[in-house]
């Protein structure tokens, strides 16, 4: 797997999908793989033609989160991969938790629901909610950590002068106070990558990439 491409947000949707297919087909037993491809097909239809902040295909985010989990998190099974692919569907109102449970099982629904709970529409969580996630199971924490890691990497490619760049200082404060401790408690590779990104913004500023 070309980790450098994954980290630098330069791979195309086709590249990432190809890598995900290879990962799933080589790592998991055959009885479990069709559900992953069903989830993949679902978000392919859901996010078809949709862009994230008018910059990159929306689907890149869930694909990259799933692939990073597969790459860096040895406990990632097919259910966690599916949850990564679907993690934004409840928050965005595309699926109900009951529908996820019916199609993909209780464990996937639990992971997706929990992660949605820790992300409000503004992207903020109360400190009490945040304390709860620090006590959650490894799988829930890992999904949240890699989701945020991908967000932090994505900020680098936000178009110059994009209005969202003004939010980066506030987001960085969340990274320092919430996400770095969460990553430290969950996956040291994710922690190191997130710390590297955080340091980059602190050193180089955030107005331009």
């Amino acid at each position: 797997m070309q980790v450098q491409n994954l980290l630098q947000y330069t791979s195309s949707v086709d590249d990432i999908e190809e890598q995900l297919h290879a990962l799933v087909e080589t790592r998991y037993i055959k009885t479990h793989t069709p559900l992953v491809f069903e989830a993949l097909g679902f978000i392919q239809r859901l996010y078809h033609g949709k862009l994230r902040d008018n910059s990159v295909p929306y689907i890149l985010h869930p694909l990259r989160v799933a692939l990073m989990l597969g790459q860096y998190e040895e406990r990632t099974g097919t259910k966690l991969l599916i949850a990564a692919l679907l993690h934004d569907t409840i928050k965005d109102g595309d699926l109900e938790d009951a529908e996820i449970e019916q199609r993909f099982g209780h464990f996937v629904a639990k992971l997706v629901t929990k992660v949605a709970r820790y992300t409000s529409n503004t992207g903020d969580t109360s400190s009490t909610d945040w304390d709860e996630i620090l006590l959650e199971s490894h799988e829930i924490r890992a999904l949240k950590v890699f989701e945020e890691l991908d967000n932090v990497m994505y900020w680098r490619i936000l178009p110059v002068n994009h209005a969202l760049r003004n939010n980066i200082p506030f987001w960085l404060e969340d990274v320092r106070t919430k996400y770095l401790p969460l990553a430290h408690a969950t996956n040291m590779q994710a922690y190191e990558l997130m710390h590297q990104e955080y340091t980059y913004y602190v050193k180089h500023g955030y107005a331009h990439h």
Partner: protein
Amino acid sequence: MSNMATPTISQLPSDIKRRLRRKGDFFLCPDDIVCPKVAYIGENVYYRFMNFVYLPQPPDSLSIEKVVELCDLRLDLMGKLVNTDINKHIVAQAANVVKAHSAKPLSGLRVLDFGCGSGFSSLLLKEELPGIRITGVDISKKAVKHARKAGLTVERTYPDKALPFDNASFDYIFAIFVMHFNVGVSTLEELKRILHPSGKFVFNVYRRDVEGVLEQLDEVGFHIDEVMSVEGANGTTTNHVIVSCASFTPDFVS
């Protein structure tokens, strides 16, 4: 997670922090204080393990290296870190699965104690199941040495390397106080390989972690037979469940 409000996780009080003793990546707590279960020490969150050690990650997120470090620490502090009554109770409950299931006489049953540590659980299993032929494995060199001194047959194993046994070598595999740690999928696949098709993998786990563990087992093809809550003395509840699973679905076994 219960519906009760979660207390805010705070910085460890400075009077406690001053009395912590650093031990590798861990902090040893003072003997005379029950420290908060979870607290910030500096910028990061630390999780109390039993009453005496703060870990930089909860047990289910510890790397293999840190698990070894913790196991070695437990050997150094056996009296403090190992609650022998709980151990005996859990082993007795796990042994009951064999007593209820095994069609063969106990004598000669081939049993693996996965993550045997000091060998304490192996010795208890031998008491509970007289006549079994038990072999221990552990990734800690120190633990292997310790268990061999206790007269046990023990092999040292290495993460991501095949376990040193032929296919279907064991009738039962036990993992006592192991599965709350991060046990990789490749290791679970190995356990499945060395377990006889009619055998059982039996382990205890803290209840809060059990669903993720069951999913991992399902992922490698184990069939979950039973998940049983462990009652404490006088019918009190404990935080443990005993899980029994088979390497093949029941229909497959003749």
